[in-house]
């Protein structure tokens, strides 16, 4: 039961931390909406074009704006030593990575999930496609969280080139974009595509604790 208490206290801490930095998350969402505006300004107000490529726009911008918050993933906790304290408190590095991934999903990705309907209204996406967009984003955003965990733990010791983390996430998220946009565009294939996406999720989720844990350990050892 001690481990359960530790998990609860971990999330209590994450909750407090994210609550105090709530404007960061809001800024992320504002970035998302401003980019939608920019996109529409550059395409033109033609209704048909916008609703044709609306889902692709939403997904691209969701990906871009969720890479913005990557630095917060481990960097702060690494720099003020909390990562080490958590480890000394009996959580293994892989387990910290899993907990952090869920925390990122809850505190960063879920607000995006809630803002999708508004984006759909802005982009004239048909109501019946909303459910597909929603379910694909629910799975896809968790994959993004896992990839974000991997790439930001890799970049902990990288003092020169923070953008590299976002590039790593973006290059590995090619399949997610393809399948997620595919789901929304081809509803008859819904189940098979969701299963593929779910399969990718399982693979990435399995790699995540190993890769992130190893990177966290490396960075703490050599810091």
């Amino acid at each position, binding site marked *: 039961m*001690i481990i359960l*208490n*530790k998990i*609860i*206290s*971990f999330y*209590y*801490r994450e909750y*407090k*931390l994210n609550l*105090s*930095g709530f404007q960061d998350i809001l800024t992320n969402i504002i970035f998302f909406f401003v980019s939608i505006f920019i996109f529409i300004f550059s395409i033109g107000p033609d209704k048909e074009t916008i609703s044709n490529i609306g889902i692709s726009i939403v997904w691209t911008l969701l990906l871009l704006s969720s890479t913005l918050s990557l630095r917060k993933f481990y960097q702060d906790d690494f*720099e*003020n*030593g*909390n990562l*080490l*304290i*958590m480890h*000394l*408190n*009996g959580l293994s590095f892989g387990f910290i990575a899993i907990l952090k991934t869920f925390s990122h999903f809850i505190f960063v990705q879920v607000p995006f999930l809630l803002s999708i309907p508004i984006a759909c209204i802005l982009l004239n996406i048909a109501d019946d496609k909303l459910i597909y967009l929603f379910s694909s984003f629910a799975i896809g955003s968790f994959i993004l969280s896992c990839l974000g965990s991997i790439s930001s733990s890799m970049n902990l010791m990288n003092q020169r080139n923070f953008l590299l983390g976002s590039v790593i996430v973006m290059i590995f998220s090619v399949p997610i974009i393809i399948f997620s946009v595919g789901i929304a565009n081809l509803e008859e294939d819904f189940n098979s595509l969701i299963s593929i996406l779910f399969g990718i999720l399982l693979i990435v989720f399995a790699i995540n604790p190993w890769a992130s844990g190893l990177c966290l350990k490396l960075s*703490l*050892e050599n810091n």
Partner: protein
Amino acid sequence: MIIVKDLSIERSNKKIFENVNLSLGSGKIILLKGKNGSGKTTLLKALLNLIEPSSGAIYWKGKLLKKNLNNFFNNVTYIADRTSSLSKLSVKENIKIWKKIFLSNISNSQVENILKTLKLDIYLDQKVNSLSFGETKKLEFLRLIIENKKVWILDEPLSNLDNESIDVIAQTFEDHRSKEGSIIFSSHQESEINVSEEVLL
């Protein structure tokens, strides 16, 4: 409890120190002395199993540290030379988070007493980033009491503190020693803390 035998550490093939021997029993306070870059932090990190020694071994309660890691982590508090309190939250919230994380059952009045002796009680509702560096450092020592562990590993606990606070800390160390606890800390400056052994790196 902790025994270090012939420990040598190399990093990127540069020798940091060689053949260090230590024995930290209960009720003992060890001071690590040495110049900047002499490997004090490295030795403390090696004690926490964060750095692989190139030769030698560390034992915890008679067993190799690596084999007995969980038990060791349950008995150790580490305070690094940086402050781990969350700067966006208030002192009160930080204490609450610590109490939850370390599953501590320390009472509120006890915490208040310590805060009073450390002269931090007036800042209870202020954010940590409005405190001065010395004050956040003092706040960090609260963790020692909250965690309530046997072994304290402290990295430069005395830097940036005024004499008054150092006296308080010396008193805390004395209390801990009388409770059969053991402390190992590093420092590059002279202090009035009553230590049982000095190790020069």
